[in-house]
Structures are given as structure tokens and as C-alpha cells.
């Protein structure tokens, strides 16, 4: 029996219930829909990859070169448009602007509470707590004037600061509202390097999260961040760990697995295309995401990913880096069995596509019948 997708089945059921349609008519509707659905599916051996490629790349040519855009009304810059699409399909390990959308559990949905969580997530470096720096060359010391007001606002104990400094064996000590750093090796270039190194010391928050922004989305408070670290954020009290996501696909792969990474690829691509006002059938994006994740990890489309790992030498050579592939094939004595589509087109043979994919199998009689002799 031909099974319609669950979504269509549900829609038919809902329609028949709403309009009080008899069982007999319902069956007629199902039959009609099944007929249409059968007609609109791909036939066996139809080259749907080519269709998918065209369906995605034609709208992509319409994309603007404008790469940045403001998420929400104010604040965080996110890479969008063509550069973002390339980023996803090239499977870059780190996106240019990693961001997270952090959802908050219902019990913590007050502005004060959400602000507090955001504050705890944001990375604070020593740089943010220092008013001015003095380089004392007579004593060979570096003196940092601390911003005590900010220190207390961020709930940082100044006594702990001296322990956080860990640059080139320098020793730090607190003197009133000043932090003195005494280098071990007393020469001037060393002091200069320490001066900047100390400012980068991690004080609190999650490493890499440089900006946080609390916004209201669809009636609930949401934190948007620049910088991403899902593992750490999931551990924070009040964070809804079932919805919080990142735009870093490799991070999702690492924390939530391949299937989640596949879903993230689809979501991110659709979001980027939608944002530019482009319509692409989601099925093509799903096909692409499935291609990228069949081996259990996320592979790029292109030279270093799927196209670079095809079985046929001729296909790889025809794509990019022709000489490299032909030379290595010659060295290793590779054999091209001409089983795919592209290589058969290249040698002017019937390609295994559509009707060309099927062979005629006949029973040839051992002996010809008497009368034909």
C-alpha cells in the first residue's frame, strides 16, 4: 500500500472532520491526493542532485553581498547572506560570528533574573576592570588602577584578582585600589609583553562570550550572545537546555550529535535564505544536509568534502585541481569503472540516469527454433 506522509494524512483528517465529510468521500479524497502525490515524487534514477543544486544556487546568485545585519533592534552583528551560506556548506570549523540564542526556563522569566543570568554568562577580562595602566620603569613594576565600582557591580572580589594573573611567572599583589605586577625577568621587552598579557586574564563568565543582549522574542526573554560555548551554558541554572542553540554547527555536532547537526544545517540555511527573501524548497536543503552527514560527521560540499572524495578519477579531475587528481591516480594505478553519471557524459556514453539506468535482460535460447534455421 502507498503511504502518504503523516503530515498530509493529518491534514486530510482535519479537513474531513471540520467539514463533516462521510467516510466514503474521505476515501475518495485520500485516493485523489495519493494519485497527485505519486505524480509529484521523483522517479527512480531521476538525477535529483542536479535539480537540488540548481534550485539552491540560482537564488544564491540573487543574494546581496551585504554581509552584516543587526539581530533584533540593537546590538549583535551576525554574518548573513552569501558568506553565511558558504560558511555552512563549506563546513567551516568556526563561523565568522559565532552566536548563541539562549532560552530561559519559565520559572526564571523576569527581566531582573534574565539580566543576572546574562551577566554571569558574559566573559569579564581584567581589561574591563582596569581604569589605567602605569608602567613604572624605575621599580620595573606594572601598576593597574582598578575600577572598584565596576568590580563591586560585577560581584568580583578584588582579593582574588592577584591569583588570576598568570603571565610569564609574574607575581601580582594588591595595594589599595592598585594591582601591582612584578615580573620575574627584569627587562623592558618582557615587561611590555606582560603589560598586555595581564589585561587578557579571565576573571569570570564563560570564555569567548564577548557580548550579551537581552531581548524579548515572542513574549519571552531571550539572551543573544556573540561567542559560543553550548556545554558551559547548558550547565547554568535557569537556562532552558532543550531549546538553547548555537550557530556553530561543529559545536552542535560535538555536544548533541550528528542528527542535531543535520537539523542545525537545515535550520541555519533556511533562516539565511528566508532572511534574504529567497524561497527554496526545504526538501533540497534536507537532501544537501543528508549528503553532508551520511558518514557520521559533517563534511563540506566541494573540493575538500564530498566532491573531493568521489570514486571516479575523471569526475574529481573535472571538478577542481585536475593535475593533482590525475597524477595521484597515475601513481596509484587507479581504475575508473565509468559507473557514474558525469564520467559517462565525458566519454559520450549513455549515462546511468533515468531510463539509461536500466539494462535489458533477456533469455537467449541455447538453440534457435527449427523453422528459423
Amino acid at each position, binding site marked *: 500500500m502507498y503511504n502518504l506522509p*503523516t503530515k498530509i494524512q493529518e491534514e486530510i483528517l482535519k479537513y474531513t472532520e471540520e467539514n463533516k465529510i462521510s467516510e466514503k468521500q474521505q476515501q475518495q479524497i485520500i485516493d485523489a491526493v495519493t494519485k497527485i502525490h505519486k505524480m509529484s515524487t521523483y522517479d527512480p534514477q531521476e538525477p535529483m542532485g542536479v535539480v537540488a543544486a540548481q534550485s539552491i544556487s540560482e537564488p544564491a546568485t540573487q543574494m546581496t553581498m551585504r554581509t552584516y545585519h543587526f539581530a533584533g533592534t540593537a546590538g549583535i552583528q551576525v554574518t548573513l547572506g552569501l558568506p553565511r551560506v558558504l560558511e555552512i556548506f563549506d563546513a567551516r570549523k568556526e563561523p565568522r560570528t559565532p552566536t548563541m540564542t539562549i532560552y530561559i526556563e519559565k520559572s526564571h522569566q523576569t527581566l531582573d533574573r534574565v539580566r543576572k543570568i546574562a551577566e554571569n554568562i558574559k566573559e569579564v577580562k581584567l581589561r574591563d576592570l582596569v581604569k589605567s595602566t602605569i608602567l613604572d620603569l624605575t621599580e620595573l613594576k606594572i601598576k593597574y588602577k582598578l575600577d572598584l565600582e565596576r568590580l563591586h557591580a560585577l560581584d568580583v572580589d578584588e582579593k582574588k584578582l592577584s591569583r588570576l594573573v598568570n603571565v610569564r611567572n609574574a607575581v601580582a599583589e594588591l595595594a589599595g585600589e592598585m594591582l601591582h605586577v612584578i615580573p620575574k625577568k627584569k627587562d623592558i621587552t618582557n615587561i611590555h609583553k606582560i603589560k598586555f598579557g595581564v589585561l587578557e586574564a579571565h576573571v569570570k563568565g564563560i570564555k569567548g562570550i564577548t557580548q550579551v543582549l537581552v531581548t524579548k522574542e515572542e513574549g519571552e526573554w531571550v539572551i543573544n550572545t556573540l561567542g559560543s560555548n553550548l556545554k558551559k551554558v547548558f*550547565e547554568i541554572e535557569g537556562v532552558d537546555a532543550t531549546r538553547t542553540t548555537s550557530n556553530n554547527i561543529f559545536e552542535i555536532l560535538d555536544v548533541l550529535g550528528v*542528527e542535531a547537526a543535520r537539523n542545525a544545517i537545515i535550520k541555519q540555511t533556511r533562516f539565511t535564505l528566508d532572511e534574504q527573501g529567497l524561497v527554496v524548497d526545504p526538501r533540497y536543503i534536507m537532501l544537501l544536509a543528508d549528503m553532508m552527514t551520511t558518514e557520521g560527521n559533517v563534511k563540506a560540499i566541494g573540493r575538500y568534502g564530498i566532491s573531493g572524495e568521489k570514486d571516479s578519477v575523471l569526475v574529481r579531475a573535472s571538478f577542481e585541481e585536475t593535475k593533482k587528481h590525475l597524477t595521484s591516480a597515475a601513481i596509484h594505478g587507479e581504475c575508473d569503472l565509468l559507473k557514474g553519471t558525469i564520467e559517462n557524459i565525458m566519454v559520450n556514453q549513455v549515462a546511468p540516469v533515468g531510463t539509461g539506468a536500466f539494462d535489458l535482460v533477456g533469455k537467449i535460447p541455447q538453440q534457435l527454433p527449427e523453422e528459423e534455421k
Partner: protein
Amino acid sequence: MMYGYDKMSMDLLQHELVPKHEILSDEEKNELFTKLHITKNDLPKILDSDSVVKKIGAKKDDVLRITRTSSTAGTAIYFRLVIPE
């Protein structure tokens, strides 16, 4: 303040990006292979180092039935073979 690692691993399968993964029994596996005329190596793969595989305790050569929610079809079934990394 911090729940520690346990909370995260508990919520991993509940995350909206993670579909339902089930381990097939040997019978179901054979039924699938005969129905589709394939061997296990024709299936898409999932690494044994994958967080979900570790969480549900699947082993090498297990086949996982993945029930995806799809924006076009409602639900869709997918299979993956667990392979060593």
C-alpha cells in the same frame, strides 16, 4: 549555581534538535535488510563517539532507527549504522 555535567547529559535527548534514536533488534535489522535489498554497509553511518550513541548505549554494528520531525512530511524514518570512529 552550577548543576554539573549530569544535568546536561540528562537533557541531551530532550533537546529540540535531537530526534528520537532507537536501537533495532536483530530481527528488525534482518527484516529491514531484506525489505530494502541492502547490506548493513549501504546505510548512512553514525560514529560510536557521537553523544547520542554514547547516551543510549549503542554498540558497533547496531542499527539505529531515527524518527525525525520534518517540516514537509511530518515525521520521517531514517536509519544509521553505528561504526567505530
